[in-house]
């Protein structure tokens, strides 16, 4: 066996080549191709259906299925006009979503990278235990924290009659939502950023220290620039998460502060009344995360593979 291969290396190469070709053919065989096409179609049809529904005239939508647009192509952007500028406009909630998402992405990132640096590059007693505790906080479902946090925001902290903290009642539209999102993002953000920051070569940090840089400088001049990829992928993740969130919006973003997810969820409650707003409204709400996602997919996937999933 050995001799034959040694004696005839060309043969081995050709065998391997045909074998590789065979696998390629097998794995992309006709059955597999059909199966993957079917899955791809099944996964896209619902979204396409919603999009086509959103650009059909209202009367058509109520009478016939969206696939009739292929036979009878009547396209209108009236629905989008109604959603944005009509009587029950979703423009306000849409803007609220932007106003909630951007600060709620920036806050946890800054706070978590500060903490991540300390956990990675500063020595102190009980560091590992504390880090494990922070990591373990990820197991607490947001649901566990909702009720007490809500009463903390509305009533503040009092011991007897003395006020330690007056609460946030009536303090701006979004402050509660920003703070809630920031808090719930922290355990995962600290964990991920710490993992990345701690992988910066120790030589780099040591060299800076020898040159007399203090922790503040090392953080700002070395760690932040080097961790930009990790910061970017967590930023995208957090932005999508906040934009798509309904739970925190339902509890903390009341009345005028409601983001688009909440406004849409409330529209579905009264299905039939404003049914014509739903397709266009849903599509507008999908548009921004989809753009962010498609443009920055690389970072998003990297974040997923690093374990950023949150519940």
């Amino acid at each position, binding site marked *: 066996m050995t001799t034959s291969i040694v004696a005839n290396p060309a043969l081995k190469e050709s065998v*391997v080549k045909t*074998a590789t070709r065979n*696998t390629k053919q097998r794995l*992309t*065989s006709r059955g*597999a191709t059909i199966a*993957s096409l079917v899955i791809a179609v099944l*996964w896209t049809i619902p979204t396409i*259906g919603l999009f086509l529904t959103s650009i059909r005239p209202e009367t058509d*939508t109520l009478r016939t*299925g*969206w*696939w009739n647009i292929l036979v009878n192509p009547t396209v209108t952007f009236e629905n989008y006009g109604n959603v944005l500028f009509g009587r029950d406009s979703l423009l306000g909630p849409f803007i609220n979503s*932007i*106003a909630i998402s*951007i600060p709620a992405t*920036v*806050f946890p990132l800054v*706070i978590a990278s*500060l903490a991540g640096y*300390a956990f990675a590059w500063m020595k102190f007693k009980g560091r590992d235990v504390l880090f494990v505790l*922070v990591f373990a906080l990820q*197991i607490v*479902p*947001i*649901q*566990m*924290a*909702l*009720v*007490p946090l809500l009463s903390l925001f509305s009533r503040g902290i009092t011991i007897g009659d003395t*006020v330690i903290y007056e609460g946030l009642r*009536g*303090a*701006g*539209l979004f*402050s509660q939502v*920003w703070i809630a999102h*920031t808090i*719930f993002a*922290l355990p995962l953000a600290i964990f991920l950023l710490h993992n990345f920051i701690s992988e910066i070569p120790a030589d780099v940090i040591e060299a800076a220290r020898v040159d007399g840089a*203090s*922790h*503040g400088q090392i953080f*700002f001049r070395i760690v932040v620039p080097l961790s930009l990829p990790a910061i970017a992928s967590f930023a995208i993740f957090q932005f*999508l998460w906040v934009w*798509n969130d*309904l*739970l925190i919006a339902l509890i903390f973003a009341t009345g005028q502060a409601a983001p688009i997810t909440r406004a*849409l*969820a409330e529209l*579905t409650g009264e299905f039939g009344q404003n049914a014509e707003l*739903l397709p266009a409204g849903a599509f507008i709400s*999908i548009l921004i*995360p*989809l753009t962010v996602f*498609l443009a920055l997919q690389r970072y998003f996937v990297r974040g*997923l593979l690093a374990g950023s*999933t949150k*519940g």
Partner: protein
Amino acid sequence: MKDLLTWIGTLPPLLQVPVIVGLFLAAAAGIILLIEVAPRPGRKFTILRLAACLVIPGLAFLLLGSVWWAVAVAVVLGGLFFLLDYRSREGRGYVFALFGFLAPAFALLLIGLVYPTFATLWNSLLSNRGVFIGLDNFAWVFSQPQNIVVIRNTIFWVLVVPVFSTAIGLAYAVFIDKSRGEKFFKVLVFMPMAISFVGASIIWRFVYDYRPADRDQIGVLNGIVTLFGGDPVNWLQQVPLNSFLLMVVLIWVQTGFAMVVLSAAIKGVPIEQVEAAQLDGTNAWQRFWNVTIPSIRPSLIVVLTTISIASLKVFDIVRTMGTAYPDTGIIANEMVTLLQKFEAGRSSAFAVILFLLVLPIVIFNARQIQKSREIR
């Protein structure tokens, strides 16, 4: 603080973003500057540290709206902290810097996660009026027939969704691996990940839509049924089918996640092993079971457990699609519904049950992630 936030709240929403982000970044820059400057040796900086230790806690409590004696206590504690830092072994200013890095995160975590978790545990033992009633809330949960349905549904969600999403995601990842247009095919299935559960539910509402038989159907599913001469079905009214139809929405969303993670894992399978198996004359199916699956096992488990956790916690789908439909409730949604009915005690009981259900899966999941890191 409150006044400031109230003032920001009066601005137009889009203007609030730069104002609050600007203020926040200024505060963060202030902290970093202090961390940078204060630990330097010399009398001037010692005084700076002392001033920071006294002023910052006092100011913080003033901004929170505390009474005077609380502010005073904070200032005294700040002074003690200064002494602690002054005598610290790592050199003056080290503990000061450390505190600057960690304090914001720890303050928020303690207030927003640690305290609320214990408070919820306690609340679940109280009635709605705040009277201690022991485990009555839990007894209520497990004694009501409608709650049994909720728990049963939740269990189905945890079992069905991860298995189907992972299986479909894995099959798709294998089928399109190294094929032409792989990236494009990936995006098609991955796209739902970017869509909110609310958006996804609205999308699927239109798929399941039902009209009486004498009218044209506008939902795809009934459109297909009638195309083949069947009678249209009011899908979301069929118990227990409706629960599974809601699970389809989550499967639709999570398959992309499974596909991306597993596809990366498949690409990491050592090519030598695959080639060796080929030389041994195995077919594609055997190679898949005996080479690919064992080497992507850690990723498979991570995907399965991660999706299980997601299916335990997801509540948006049931809320947006199914509140009007019979027997579709799950724990995560019931918890919010009770909260909105001001039944804090029972709501907390459901939250605790959810926590206990999630706990073992999360621990297992974290261990697997750790293990797969070690292998890498």
